Protein backbone atom coordinates (compact mmCIF):
# COMPACT_ATOMS: atom_id res chain seq x y z
CA UNK A 1 0.00 0.00 0.00
CA UNK A 2 1.25 3.44 -0.66
CA UNK A 3 0.98 6.34 1.67
CA UNK A 4 -2.09 7.70 0.00
CA UNK A 5 -4.03 4.55 0.65
CA UNK A 6 -3.18 4.19 4.30
CA UNK A 7 -3.35 7.73 5.43
CA UNK A 8 -5.79 9.62 3.35
CA UNK A 9 -6.23 12.74 5.37
CA UNK A 10 -3.82 12.34 8.23
CA UNK A 11 -0.93 14.61 8.99
CA UNK A 12 -2.21 17.55 7.11
CA UNK A 13 -2.24 21.02 8.48
CA UNK A 14 -5.59 22.09 9.65
CA UNK A 15 -6.01 25.70 8.86
CA UNK A 16 -7.91 27.58 11.48
CA UNK A 17 -10.93 28.74 9.61
CA UNK A 18 -13.71 31.04 10.65
CA UNK A 19 -13.82 30.93 14.37
CA UNK A 20 -16.47 33.56 14.34
CA UNK A 21 -19.92 33.16 13.01
CA UNK A 22 -21.12 35.22 10.12
CA UNK A 23 -24.24 37.37 10.16
CA UNK A 24 -26.36 34.68 8.54
CA UNK A 25 -25.23 32.11 11.12
CA UNK A 26 -26.13 34.44 13.95
CA UNK A 27 -29.48 35.30 12.44
CA UNK A 28 -30.31 31.66 11.79
CA UNK A 29 -29.32 30.74 15.34
CA UNK A 30 -31.65 33.38 16.72
CA UNK A 31 -34.54 32.12 14.62
CA UNK A 32 -33.87 28.49 15.43
CA UNK A 33 -33.56 29.25 19.12
CA UNK A 34 -37.14 30.50 19.01
CA UNK A 35 -38.21 27.57 16.84
CA UNK A 36 -39.56 29.95 14.21
CA UNK A 37 -39.88 29.56 10.47
CA UNK A 38 -37.92 31.86 8.22
CA UNK A 39 -40.16 34.70 7.10
CA UNK A 40 -40.75 38.45 7.48
CA UNK A 41 -42.36 37.96 10.85
CA UNK A 42 -39.63 35.91 12.45
CA UNK A 43 -36.96 38.19 10.99
CA UNK A 44 -38.73 41.16 12.51
CA UNK A 45 -38.84 39.41 15.85
CA UNK A 46 -35.13 38.78 16.06
CA UNK A 47 -34.01 42.13 14.67
CA UNK A 48 -33.36 43.70 18.03
CA UNK A 49 -31.32 40.82 19.37
CA UNK A 50 -29.35 40.61 16.16
CA UNK A 51 -28.43 44.25 16.36
CA UNK A 52 -27.40 43.89 19.97
CA UNK A 53 -25.21 40.97 19.00
CA UNK A 54 -23.59 42.92 16.20
CA UNK A 55 -22.96 45.77 18.58
CA UNK A 56 -21.01 43.54 20.94
CA UNK A 57 -18.66 42.28 18.25
CA UNK A 58 -15.07 42.90 19.07
CA UNK A 59 -11.67 41.46 18.45
CA UNK A 60 -9.29 41.29 15.53
CA UNK A 61 -12.01 40.28 13.11
CA UNK A 62 -14.16 43.06 14.47
CA UNK A 63 -14.15 45.55 11.66
CA UNK A 64 -14.42 43.16 8.78
CA UNK A 65 -17.11 41.24 10.56
CA UNK A 66 -19.07 44.29 11.54
CA UNK A 67 -19.24 45.50 7.98
CA UNK A 68 -21.07 42.37 6.91
CA UNK A 69 -23.28 42.50 10.00
CA UNK A 70 -24.28 46.07 9.26
CA UNK A 71 -25.48 45.28 5.76
CA UNK A 72 -27.68 42.48 7.11
CA UNK A 73 -28.85 44.68 9.99
CA UNK A 74 -30.00 47.37 7.57
CA UNK A 75 -32.20 44.86 5.76
CA UNK A 76 -33.63 43.64 9.06
CA UNK A 77 -34.50 47.15 10.16
CA UNK A 78 -36.27 47.69 6.90
CA UNK A 79 -38.30 44.53 7.42
CA UNK A 80 -39.09 45.62 10.96
CA UNK A 81 -40.18 49.07 9.81
CA UNK A 82 -42.38 47.57 7.12
CA UNK A 83 -43.97 45.15 9.57
CA UNK A 84 -44.73 47.95 11.99
CA UNK A 85 -45.97 50.23 9.30
CA UNK A 86 -47.30 48.23 6.36
CA UNK A 87 -48.02 51.37 4.37
CA UNK A 88 -44.32 52.20 4.27
CA UNK A 89 -43.11 52.26 0.69
CA UNK A 90 -40.34 49.82 -0.08
CA UNK A 91 -38.31 50.33 -3.22
CA UNK A 92 -38.03 47.43 -5.66
CA UNK A 93 -34.34 47.23 -4.80
CA UNK A 94 -35.18 46.87 -1.13
CA UNK A 95 -37.75 44.20 -1.95
CA UNK A 96 -35.02 42.23 -3.66
CA UNK A 97 -32.70 42.65 -0.68
CA UNK A 98 -35.36 41.32 1.66
CA UNK A 99 -36.29 38.37 -0.54
CA UNK A 100 -32.63 37.63 -1.00
CA UNK A 101 -31.95 37.54 2.70
CA UNK A 102 -34.79 35.11 3.27
CA UNK A 103 -33.60 32.91 0.44
CA UNK A 104 -30.05 32.81 1.76
CA UNK A 105 -31.25 31.92 5.23
CA UNK A 106 -33.39 29.11 3.93
CA UNK A 107 -30.51 27.78 1.87
CA UNK A 108 -28.11 27.99 4.79
CA UNK A 109 -30.61 26.27 7.06
CA UNK A 110 -30.97 23.43 4.58
CA UNK A 111 -27.23 23.14 3.96
CA UNK A 112 -26.57 23.04 7.71
CA UNK A 113 -29.05 20.22 8.07
CA UNK A 114 -27.57 18.35 5.11
CA UNK A 115 -24.07 18.95 6.49
CA UNK A 116 -25.07 17.37 9.77
CA UNK A 117 -26.34 14.27 7.96
CA UNK A 118 -23.16 14.11 5.89
CA UNK A 119 -21.14 14.22 9.10
CA UNK A 120 -22.95 11.11 10.30
CA UNK A 121 -22.43 9.26 7.02
CA UNK A 122 -18.82 10.35 6.45
CA UNK A 123 -16.40 7.46 6.79
CA UNK A 124 -19.11 4.99 7.77
CA UNK A 125 -19.39 2.77 4.69
CA UNK A 126 -16.43 3.95 2.70
CA UNK A 127 -15.49 3.04 -0.80
CA UNK A 128 -11.77 2.30 -0.53
CA UNK A 129 -9.25 3.33 -3.11
CA UNK A 130 -7.06 0.74 -4.75
CA UNK A 131 -3.66 -0.08 -3.39
CA UNK A 132 -0.79 1.07 -5.52
CA UNK A 133 -0.01 -1.88 -7.79
CA UNK A 134 2.73 0.02 -9.51
CA UNK A 135 4.69 1.27 -6.54
CA UNK A 136 7.67 -0.97 -7.32
CA UNK A 137 8.11 0.74 -10.63
CA UNK A 138 10.87 3.30 -10.74
CA UNK A 139 12.27 4.31 -14.05
CA UNK A 140 14.22 7.55 -14.24
CA UNK A 141 12.30 9.44 -16.86
CA UNK A 142 12.95 13.17 -16.83
CA UNK A 143 10.53 15.27 -18.81
CA UNK A 144 11.51 17.86 -21.35
CA UNK A 145 10.03 20.61 -19.25
CA UNK A 146 12.35 20.00 -16.28
CA UNK A 147 15.19 22.48 -16.08
CA UNK A 148 16.69 24.99 -13.68
CA UNK A 149 14.63 27.76 -15.23
CA UNK A 150 11.31 25.97 -15.06
CA UNK A 151 12.05 24.82 -11.49
CA UNK A 152 12.84 28.37 -10.44
CA UNK A 153 9.77 29.70 -12.13
CA UNK A 154 7.65 27.01 -10.45
CA UNK A 155 8.91 27.65 -6.95
CA UNK A 156 8.17 31.33 -7.35
CA UNK A 157 4.67 30.57 -8.57
CA UNK A 158 4.11 28.25 -5.61
CA UNK A 159 5.36 30.89 -3.19
CA UNK A 160 3.10 33.50 -4.71
CA UNK A 161 0.03 31.32 -4.34
CA UNK A 162 0.20 30.96 -0.57
CA UNK A 163 -2.62 33.05 0.86
CA UNK A 164 -1.62 36.07 2.85
CA UNK A 165 -2.74 36.05 6.42
CA UNK A 166 -4.62 38.79 8.24
CA UNK A 167 -1.63 41.12 8.11
CA UNK A 168 -3.06 42.50 4.97
CA UNK A 169 -6.53 43.92 4.97
CA UNK A 170 -8.86 42.11 2.63
CA UNK A 171 -9.53 43.86 -0.59
CA UNK A 172 -12.69 45.76 -0.13
CA UNK A 173 -15.11 47.25 -2.46
CA UNK A 174 -17.06 50.38 -1.98
CA UNK A 175 -20.69 50.17 -2.62
CA UNK A 176 -22.70 53.30 -2.87
CA UNK A 177 -25.25 52.34 -0.30
CA UNK A 178 -26.45 54.32 2.63
CA UNK A 179 -24.77 53.88 5.96
CA UNK A 180 -26.92 52.56 8.74
CA UNK A 181 -27.14 56.05 10.16
CA UNK A 182 -28.39 57.54 6.90
CA UNK A 183 -30.71 54.68 6.53
CA UNK A 184 -32.22 55.33 9.96
CA UNK A 185 -32.70 58.97 9.17
CA UNK A 186 -34.37 58.42 5.88
CA UNK A 187 -36.44 55.62 7.30
CA UNK A 188 -37.58 57.83 10.11
CA UNK A 189 -38.66 60.49 7.60
CA UNK A 190 -40.33 57.95 5.40
CA UNK A 191 -42.16 56.49 8.35
CA UNK A 192 -43.37 59.85 9.57
CA UNK A 193 -44.84 60.72 6.23
CA UNK A 194 -46.27 57.26 5.85
CA UNK A 195 -47.76 57.62 9.30
CA UNK A 196 -49.54 60.84 8.36
CA UNK A 197 -50.95 59.07 5.36
CA UNK A 198 -51.94 56.10 7.43
CA UNK A 199 -54.46 57.99 9.49
CA UNK A 200 -56.17 59.24 6.40
CA UNK A 201 -55.88 55.89 4.76
CA UNK A 202 -57.47 54.17 7.69
CA UNK A 203 -60.55 56.34 7.65
CA UNK A 204 -61.06 55.53 4.00
CA UNK A 205 -60.09 51.96 3.60
CA UNK A 206 -59.99 49.61 6.55
CA UNK A 207 -57.18 47.15 6.13
CA UNK A 208 -58.92 44.14 7.54
CA UNK A 209 -62.13 42.70 6.39
CA UNK A 210 -65.01 44.26 8.25
CA UNK A 211 -67.72 42.67 6.18
CA UNK A 212 -69.20 40.69 9.01
CA UNK A 213 -68.83 43.36 11.65
CA UNK A 214 -71.36 45.87 12.88
CA UNK A 215 -70.62 49.58 12.99
CA UNK A 216 -69.48 49.65 16.59
CA UNK A 217 -67.07 46.82 15.96
CA UNK A 218 -65.67 48.51 12.90
CA UNK A 219 -64.93 51.62 14.91
CA UNK A 220 -63.24 49.46 17.50
CA UNK A 221 -61.03 47.78 14.90
CA UNK A 222 -60.03 51.12 13.44
CA UNK A 223 -59.13 52.50 16.82
CA UNK A 224 -57.06 49.44 17.62
CA UNK A 225 -55.25 49.78 14.33
CA UNK A 226 -54.41 53.41 14.93
CA UNK A 227 -53.19 52.63 18.41
CA UNK A 228 -51.12 49.84 17.08
CA UNK A 229 -49.46 52.12 14.58
CA UNK A 230 -48.60 54.68 17.20
CA UNK A 231 -47.26 52.14 19.63
CA UNK A 232 -45.28 50.46 16.90
CA UNK A 233 -43.73 53.67 15.79
CA UNK A 234 -42.60 54.48 19.29
CA UNK A 235 -41.14 51.01 19.55
CA UNK A 236 -39.30 51.51 16.33
CA UNK A 237 -37.92 54.84 17.43
CA UNK A 238 -36.63 53.12 20.53
CA UNK A 239 -34.98 50.58 18.35
CA UNK A 240 -33.50 53.25 16.19
CA UNK A 241 -32.11 54.99 19.23
CA UNK A 242 -30.37 51.81 20.26
CA UNK A 243 -29.10 51.32 16.80
CA UNK A 244 -27.57 54.74 16.76
CA UNK A 245 -24.99 53.22 19.04
CA UNK A 246 -24.06 51.00 16.18
CA UNK A 247 -24.45 53.74 13.69
CA UNK A 248 -21.78 55.57 15.67
CA UNK A 249 -19.52 52.68 14.95
CA UNK A 250 -19.50 53.61 11.33
CA UNK A 251 -16.84 56.07 12.42
CA UNK A 252 -14.59 53.10 12.89
CA UNK A 253 -15.24 51.87 9.43
CA UNK A 254 -13.99 55.14 8.13
CA UNK A 255 -10.52 54.28 9.39
CA UNK A 256 -10.13 51.42 7.01
CA UNK A 257 -12.26 53.14 4.51
CA UNK A 258 -9.48 53.40 1.98
CA UNK A 259 -10.39 55.42 -1.01
CA UNK A 260 -13.85 56.24 0.18
CA UNK A 261 -15.13 59.03 -1.94
CA UNK A 262 -18.65 59.63 -0.86
CA UNK A 263 -19.38 60.13 2.80
CA UNK A 264 -21.85 57.67 4.17
CA UNK A 265 -20.72 54.82 2.05
CA UNK A 266 -20.15 51.70 4.05
CA UNK A 267 -17.52 49.11 3.64
CA UNK A 268 -18.83 45.97 2.20
CA UNK A 269 -16.64 43.04 2.72
CA UNK A 270 -16.26 41.69 -0.72
CA UNK A 271 -17.86 38.36 -0.13
CA UNK A 272 -19.66 37.74 -3.30
CA UNK A 273 -18.00 40.21 -5.52
CA UNK A 274 -14.38 39.36 -5.17
CA UNK A 275 -13.98 36.02 -6.85
CA UNK A 276 -10.88 34.00 -6.23
CA UNK A 277 -9.10 34.01 -9.49
CA UNK A 278 -6.82 31.74 -11.37
CA UNK A 279 -3.26 32.84 -10.81
Amino acid at each position, binding site marked *: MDEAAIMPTQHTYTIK*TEQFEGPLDVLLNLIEKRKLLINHISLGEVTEEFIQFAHRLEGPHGLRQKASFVSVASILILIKAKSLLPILDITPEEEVDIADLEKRLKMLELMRKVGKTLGLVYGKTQIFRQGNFRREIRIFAPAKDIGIDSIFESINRALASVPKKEKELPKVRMRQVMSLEDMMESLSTRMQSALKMTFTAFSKAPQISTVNLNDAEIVEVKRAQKQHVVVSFLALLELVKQNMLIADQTENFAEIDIGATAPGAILEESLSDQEDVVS
Partner: protein
Amino acid sequence: MNQHAQLIEAFLFWKGEPVTVRELSKSLNLALEVIEDSLGVLTEQSEDGRGIVLVRYGDKVTLGTHPDTSEAIEALTKEELSRDLGKSALETLAIILYQGPVKRSQIDYVRGVNSQFILRNLLMRGLIDRAQDEHDERVFVYSPSLELLAHLGVKRISELPDFEKVIASLQAFEKEE
Protein backbone atom coordinates in the same frame (compact mmCIF):
# COMPACT_ATOMS: atom_id res chain seq x y z
CA MET B 1 -18.55 -6.96 -21.49
CA ASN B 2 -17.44 -5.46 -24.74
CA GLN B 3 -13.90 -4.82 -25.80
CA HIS B 4 -14.01 -1.10 -25.11
CA ALA B 5 -15.42 -1.53 -21.63
CA GLN B 6 -12.68 -4.06 -21.00
CA LEU B 7 -9.99 -1.65 -22.12
CA ILE B 8 -11.44 1.18 -20.05
CA GLU B 9 -11.63 -0.97 -16.96
CA ALA B 10 -8.04 -2.06 -17.46
CA PHE B 11 -6.97 1.55 -17.98
CA LEU B 12 -8.70 2.79 -14.84
CA PHE B 13 -7.11 -0.03 -12.86
CA TRP B 14 -3.66 0.67 -14.29
CA LYS B 15 -3.99 4.40 -13.75
CA GLY B 16 -5.11 4.03 -10.14
CA GLU B 17 -6.30 7.62 -9.79
CA PRO B 18 -9.26 9.71 -10.95
CA VAL B 19 -9.26 10.52 -14.65
CA THR B 20 -11.58 12.62 -16.76
CA VAL B 21 -13.70 11.23 -19.57
CA ARG B 22 -11.75 13.49 -21.89
CA GLU B 23 -8.45 11.96 -20.76
CA LEU B 24 -9.87 8.49 -21.30
CA SER B 25 -10.94 9.43 -24.78
CA LYS B 26 -7.57 10.91 -25.60
CA SER B 27 -5.42 8.18 -24.05
CA LEU B 28 -7.42 5.29 -25.50
CA ASN B 29 -8.17 7.03 -28.77
CA LEU B 30 -11.90 6.35 -28.48
CA ALA B 31 -14.79 8.69 -29.23
CA LEU B 32 -16.51 10.31 -26.26
CA GLU B 33 -19.74 8.45 -27.02
CA VAL B 34 -17.95 5.11 -26.98
CA ILE B 35 -16.43 6.01 -23.63
CA GLU B 36 -19.83 7.00 -22.25
CA ASP B 37 -21.46 3.79 -23.46
CA SER B 38 -18.73 1.66 -21.96
CA LEU B 39 -18.87 3.55 -18.67
CA GLY B 40 -22.56 2.73 -18.66
CA VAL B 41 -21.72 -0.95 -18.98
CA LEU B 42 -19.20 -0.71 -16.16
CA THR B 43 -21.71 1.10 -13.95
CA GLU B 44 -24.25 -1.64 -14.49
CA GLN B 45 -21.71 -4.19 -13.49
CA SER B 46 -20.92 -2.22 -10.36
CA GLU B 47 -24.46 -2.81 -9.22
CA ASP B 48 -24.07 -6.50 -9.90
CA GLY B 49 -22.42 -7.51 -6.67
CA ARG B 50 -18.86 -7.15 -7.87
CA GLY B 51 -16.07 -6.24 -5.53
CA ILE B 52 -15.03 -3.23 -7.60
CA VAL B 53 -17.28 -0.31 -8.49
CA LEU B 54 -17.10 2.73 -10.73
CA VAL B 55 -17.23 6.06 -8.87
CA ARG B 56 -18.19 9.07 -10.93
CA TYR B 57 -18.81 12.79 -10.59
CA GLY B 58 -19.48 14.73 -13.77
CA ASP B 59 -16.44 14.28 -15.94
CA LYS B 60 -14.34 12.40 -13.37
CA VAL B 61 -14.22 8.63 -12.90
CA THR B 62 -12.24 6.15 -10.84
CA LEU B 63 -12.53 2.65 -9.39
CA GLY B 64 -13.14 1.76 -5.75
CA THR B 65 -14.23 -1.10 -3.51
CA HIS B 66 -17.91 -2.00 -3.31
CA PRO B 67 -19.60 -0.30 -0.32
CA ASP B 68 -20.93 -3.68 0.81
CA THR B 69 -17.38 -4.74 1.60
CA SER B 70 -16.58 -1.60 3.62
CA GLU B 71 -17.01 -3.05 7.04
CA ALA B 72 -14.67 -5.98 6.43
CA ILE B 73 -11.98 -3.77 4.89
CA GLU B 74 -12.40 -1.04 7.45
CA ALA B 75 -11.60 -3.62 10.15
CA LEU B 76 -8.32 -4.33 8.36
CA THR B 77 -7.16 -0.74 7.94
CA LYS B 78 -4.77 0.35 10.61
CA GLU B 79 -5.09 4.04 9.99
CA GLU B 80 -8.27 5.74 11.05
CA LEU B 81 -9.84 8.17 8.66
CA SER B 82 -9.67 11.51 10.35
CA ARG B 83 -13.25 12.48 10.84
CA ASP B 84 -12.71 15.89 12.34
CA LEU B 85 -14.83 17.79 9.91
CA GLY B 86 -16.23 20.80 11.71
CA LYS B 87 -19.61 22.39 11.22
CA SER B 88 -18.37 24.93 8.69
CA ALA B 89 -16.51 22.28 6.72
CA LEU B 90 -19.60 20.07 6.52
CA GLU B 91 -21.79 23.02 5.56
CA THR B 92 -19.36 23.97 2.80
CA LEU B 93 -19.12 20.38 1.58
CA ALA B 94 -22.92 20.19 1.52
CA ILE B 95 -23.07 23.26 -0.73
CA ILE B 96 -20.41 21.86 -3.05
CA LEU B 97 -22.00 18.39 -3.16
CA TYR B 98 -25.58 19.47 -3.73
CA GLN B 99 -24.97 22.63 -5.75
CA GLY B 100 -21.57 22.00 -7.33
CA PRO B 101 -19.70 22.84 -9.34
CA VAL B 102 -19.85 26.23 -7.61
CA LYS B 103 -17.84 29.40 -7.54
CA ARG B 104 -16.55 30.75 -4.27
CA SER B 105 -18.93 33.66 -4.57
CA GLN B 106 -21.87 31.24 -4.56
CA ILE B 107 -20.57 29.53 -1.43
CA ASP B 108 -19.96 32.86 0.28
CA TYR B 109 -23.44 33.98 -0.69
CA VAL B 110 -25.10 31.09 1.12
CA ARG B 111 -22.77 31.05 4.10
CA GLY B 112 -22.57 34.79 4.58
CA VAL B 113 -18.88 34.60 5.38
CA ASN B 114 -15.67 34.46 3.43
CA SER B 115 -14.92 30.82 2.60
CA GLN B 116 -11.40 31.25 1.26
CA PHE B 117 -9.61 29.45 4.06
CA ILE B 118 -12.07 26.64 4.52
CA LEU B 119 -11.89 25.92 0.77
CA ARG B 120 -8.13 25.82 0.93
CA ASN B 121 -8.32 23.41 3.82
CA LEU B 122 -10.73 21.11 1.98
CA LEU B 123 -8.56 21.27 -1.15
CA MET B 124 -5.50 20.28 0.87
CA ARG B 125 -7.35 17.35 2.34
CA GLY B 126 -8.29 16.24 -1.17
CA LEU B 127 -12.01 16.43 -0.43
CA ILE B 128 -12.77 18.94 -3.16
CA ASP B 129 -11.33 19.72 -6.56
CA ARG B 130 -10.75 23.10 -8.11
CA ALA B 131 -11.02 23.84 -11.82
CA GLN B 132 -11.28 26.82 -14.09
CA ASP B 133 -14.81 27.93 -14.87
CA GLU B 134 -15.97 26.93 -18.33
CA HIS B 135 -17.52 30.31 -18.95
CA ASP B 136 -14.86 32.46 -17.36
CA GLU B 137 -11.37 31.05 -17.32
CA ARG B 138 -10.22 33.58 -14.79
CA VAL B 139 -12.45 32.14 -12.08
CA PHE B 140 -12.26 28.88 -10.12
CA VAL B 141 -15.13 26.49 -9.60
CA TYR B 142 -15.21 23.86 -6.86
CA SER B 143 -16.59 20.35 -7.11
CA PRO B 144 -16.59 17.31 -4.84
CA SER B 145 -13.57 15.02 -5.31
CA LEU B 146 -14.12 11.34 -5.99
CA GLU B 147 -12.31 10.80 -2.71
CA LEU B 148 -15.10 12.69 -0.95
CA LEU B 149 -17.78 10.57 -2.62
CA ALA B 150 -15.79 7.48 -1.64
CA HIS B 151 -15.56 8.59 1.99
CA LEU B 152 -19.31 9.11 1.97
CA GLY B 153 -19.77 5.65 0.48
CA VAL B 154 -21.60 6.81 -2.65
CA LYS B 155 -20.78 5.93 -6.25
CA ARG B 156 -22.39 9.12 -7.53
CA ILE B 157 -24.02 12.17 -5.97
CA SER B 158 -27.56 11.01 -6.66
CA GLU B 159 -26.95 8.38 -3.96
CA LEU B 160 -26.36 11.09 -1.36
CA PRO B 161 -28.87 11.30 1.50
CA ASP B 162 -32.17 12.89 0.38
CA PHE B 163 -30.59 14.00 -2.87
CA GLU B 164 -33.78 14.58 -4.90
CA LYS B 165 -35.54 16.25 -2.02
CA VAL B 166 -32.73 18.65 -1.25
CA ILE B 167 -32.33 19.58 -4.91
CA ALA B 168 -36.08 20.23 -5.18
CA SER B 169 -36.00 22.48 -2.10
CA LEU B 170 -33.08 24.44 -3.46
CA GLN B 171 -34.90 24.98 -6.73
CA ALA B 172 -37.99 26.09 -4.86
CA PHE B 173 -35.96 28.74 -3.02
CA GLU B 174 -34.69 30.08 -6.32
CA LYS B 175 -38.19 30.40 -7.70
CA GLU B 176 -39.61 32.19 -4.69
CA GLU B 177 -37.73 35.31 -5.52
